[in-house]
C-alpha cells in the first residue's frame, strides 16, 4: 500500500526520531512510504487563533503536496482533524480549492486509525517492558471519535503493563496557541494532567498527538527537576512503543 506521511511540524522540528518510528512501523506492515519534502504545516495553529486568511497559505501548500496521494497518514491527531474537517470551512469561498481540499480531506488518516481501521492490524508484533499510561488527546478521541484503535494496539504490545490514569481524556492545556497566549492557565492545567500521569504509577506516558506530548513532557521534566515528583516519567509517541522490539 502506497502512503504519504504527514509528519507534523513539531515532529519535523523537535522529534525526528518519532517520525522515523512511524516510518518503520508502517514499513514493517508492508507500506510503501513517501515523505514529501515540501510539506510544512497543516495550518491548524492559525485557524485556531482566528486567522483563517493567514492560514490559507499553509493549507494550500499542504493540499498541493498531498492531493495526488492515495492514503495520507498523519502522525498527529489534531492535524488530521484540521485537514479532514476544517479545510472545507476555510476554503468555502474558493470552489476550485474546495474540490482539491476534498481529495486530501477524504484520504487523511490518523496514525492509529490507519493501522487498525484501514490495514486491519491490531498486533504489530511489538514488545515493550514497562508500565505505560495513555493520554487520550481531545482531537483524536472526541472530535474525530477515534477511541478504540490506540487501546487495541496497546493491548497487543507484549510486556506492556497498561495503567489507567484519572481523566485520561481531559485536555492537557496545550490548545494550540493557547499555551503561549494564556500561559498561566495552561500551566495549571498541564500540572494537573502531569500529576494524573504521575499518580497512575506509570513510568511512561504515551499519546498520539505530538503537541500534547511536547507540552506534557515540558511539565513532567520541570516537576522532576524541581523535585515535585520523585521519578522521571518518559513521554513517548505511540509509534515509538509500536516500534519497540
Amino acid at each position, binding site marked *: 500500500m502506497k502512503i504519504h506521511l504527514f509528519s507534523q*511540524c513539531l515532529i519535523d522540528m523537535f522529534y525526528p526520531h518519532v517520525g522515523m518510528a512511524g516510518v518503520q512501523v508502517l514499513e514493517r506492515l508492508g507500506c510503501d512510504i513517501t515523505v514529501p519534502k515540501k*510539506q510544512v504545516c497543516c495550518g491548524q495553529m492559525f485557524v485556531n487563533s482566528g486567522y483563517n486568511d493567514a492560514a490559507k497559505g499553509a493549507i494550500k*501548500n499542504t493540499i498541493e503536496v498531498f492531493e495526488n496521494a492515495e492514503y495520507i497518514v498523519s502522525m498527529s491527531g489534531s492535524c488530521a482533524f484540521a485537514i479532514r474537517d476544517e479545510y472545507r470551512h476555510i476554503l468555502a469561498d474558493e470552489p476550485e480549492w474546495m474540490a482539491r481540499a476534498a481529495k486530501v480531506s477524504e484520504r487523511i488518516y490518523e496514525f492509529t486509525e490507519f493501522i487498525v481501521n484501514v490495514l486491519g492490524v491490531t498486533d504489530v508484533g511489538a514488545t515493550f517492558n514497562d508500565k505505560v499510561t495513555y493520554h487520550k488527546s481531545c482531537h483524536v478521541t472526541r472530535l474525530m471519535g477515534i477511541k478504540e484503535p490506540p487501546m487495541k494496539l496497546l493491548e497487543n504490545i507484549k510486556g506492556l503493563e497498561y495503567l489507567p490514569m484519572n481523566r485520561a481524556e481531559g*485536555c492537557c492545556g496545550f490548545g494550540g496557541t493557547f499555551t503561549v497566549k494564556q500561559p498561566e492557565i495552561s500551566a495549571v492545567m498541564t500540572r494537573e494532567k502531569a500529576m494524573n500521569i504521575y499518580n497512575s504509577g506509570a513510568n511512561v506516558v504515551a499519546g498520539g498527538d505530538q503537541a500534547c506530548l511536547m507540552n506534557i513532557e515540558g511539565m513532567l521534566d520541570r516537576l522532576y527537576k524541581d523535585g515535585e515528583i520523585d521519578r522521571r516519567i518518559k513521554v513517548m509517541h505511540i509509534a515509538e512503543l509500536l516500534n519497540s522490539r
Partner: protein
Amino acid sequence: MAILYDERPFKKRVEDVLANDFKVKAIQKAQDVFYAKRKALVDQVPEWEDFREEAAELRDHVLSNLDYYLNQFAENATKAGAKVHFAHTAEEANEYVMEVVRAKNAKMVVKGKTMVSEEISLNEALMKEGVEVNETDLAEFILQTADWNPPSHIVVPALHFARERIRETFHDKLGYEGTEDPEEMTRFVRKRIRDRFLRADIGFTGCNFAVAETGTITIVSNEGNGRMSSSMPKTMICLMGMERLVPDFAGLDIMMELLIRSSVGAKISNYFSMITGPAKPGEADGPEELHIIIIDNGRSNILGGEFNSMLRCIRCGACMNICPVYRHITGHAYGSIYPGPMGAVLTPLLVGYEKTGDLPYASTLCGECWEHCPVKIPLHELLLKHRVNIADKAHLRPAAEEAIFKTVATVFSNSFLFDYGTKLGAIGMKLMSKNGNMADWTKLLPVVGGWMKAKEMGTLKLKKFRDVYAEYEASKRK
C-alpha cells in the same frame, strides 16, 4: 447585577483567581462531584445520545418557528388569565416591572432564582425604586448577604463559597452564632426567609421552559423557594428569555430528562412547578395576578445567524461542570454572569466584542463542553467563529500578535522559507540552551518566556525529520 460585573482586563481577573487557592479548590471539588454523579446517571441511559439528538432537533425546530410558538404561548397564557408582556430590551422589561410595582404599591419582594433578572439588572432597578429585594435561592441569598458577591456558576452561583466562608458571612452580616453545619445554617436562613415570603408584595421567578400549547410556565428548583415565590405573594412576575419555549408537554418531558441529569447529576429535582395562569376562583394557592415578561435583550439578533445554535441552551451548566479552563479560573475570571464555555460564547453576543474579546480565547477548544451539552451546541466551533470575527474580520487582537501570526504563516506555507527559518531558529536556540533544554533566563523572553516559566522546552533540531528520512532513504538504496 449587569451581564458584565468585572471589566478589568481578562489577564488581571485570571491572576486574581489563580492567587485564590481556596476559591479554585472549592470549584474543583464541586466539579469532581458533579462529574461523578452525572456520569453514573448518564451511563445508565443507553439512549442518551438519541435523547441529545432529539433535544437538539426540538430546540432547532422551536427556534425556526419561534414567532409561531411565542404567539401560541402568549395567546394560551392570556386565555388562562396571565398578563403577557414582550420586552425588547432590559430597560423595557424593568419599566414594565416598575409599572406593576407602582400599581401594587409594592415595598418588598421575594425572588426565586432567575438569570434573566441578573441580565437586565432588575435588583438594581428595584432598589433604585426603593423596594426591598430578597433573594430566596440559598446560594443567591448567600451572595446577597455577602454584599452582592458576583455569581461563579449559572446553576449554583455560590459554588466558590466553602462552608467556613458561608458561616463567617452569616456571622458578620446577620449575627449568626451557630456552627458551619450546612443543615444548621440552612435552618437559620429558612426561618429568616419564611417571614419574607409571607409579607412580600410581589414574587419573582424565572422560567425554565414555557409550554406553548397550554400557556404554562415551569420552574425547576431544589429548595422549594421557587414554589413559594410563585404561590405566596398575591402578585407574581415571571421573567423568561424569549427562546425558552417547548411546543407541548411531550417536548417538555424530553428537555426535563436532559436538564436535571446534565445540571446536577440527579434524576429529578426536588420541586417542579407548572403554572398555568393565576389562581382560579376557589383555588387556595397561587397569585391573584400573574405577569409574564418575555425578554429579547439581544436574542433576536442571534436568531438565524451563525450563532443560532447558542439559543438552544437550556442553562444546565453542564459545560462549566466539565470545562478544564473553568475548573482552574472559576466563573469569576470570565467577569460575566454567564461564565464557562456557554458564557464565553453568549456574553460577546449580548454585549459586543469590545469588552469581551478575550473570552472566546479562554478555551483550548477541547470539545468536552460540546460532548456534555444535552442539546449538542458545538460550543468549541462557536468559540472559533468568534475568534475569526475578532481576529480576521474586526482586527481587534493586538497589532503585534496579528503581525507575528501573519509572518509565521508565510514561513509555514513554504518549505524553503520554513527550512531556512527553522535552521536559524535551531542555531539561536542552541545559544539559548543548557544541556539540551532552554536555559533559565529565557523565562524573561516574550512568548517563549510564558512557556518557560512553567515548563521545560527542548531545542529545535538542526537536522529535521525530513532530513533524517532522506538520509534513511538514501542508505536503503545503496
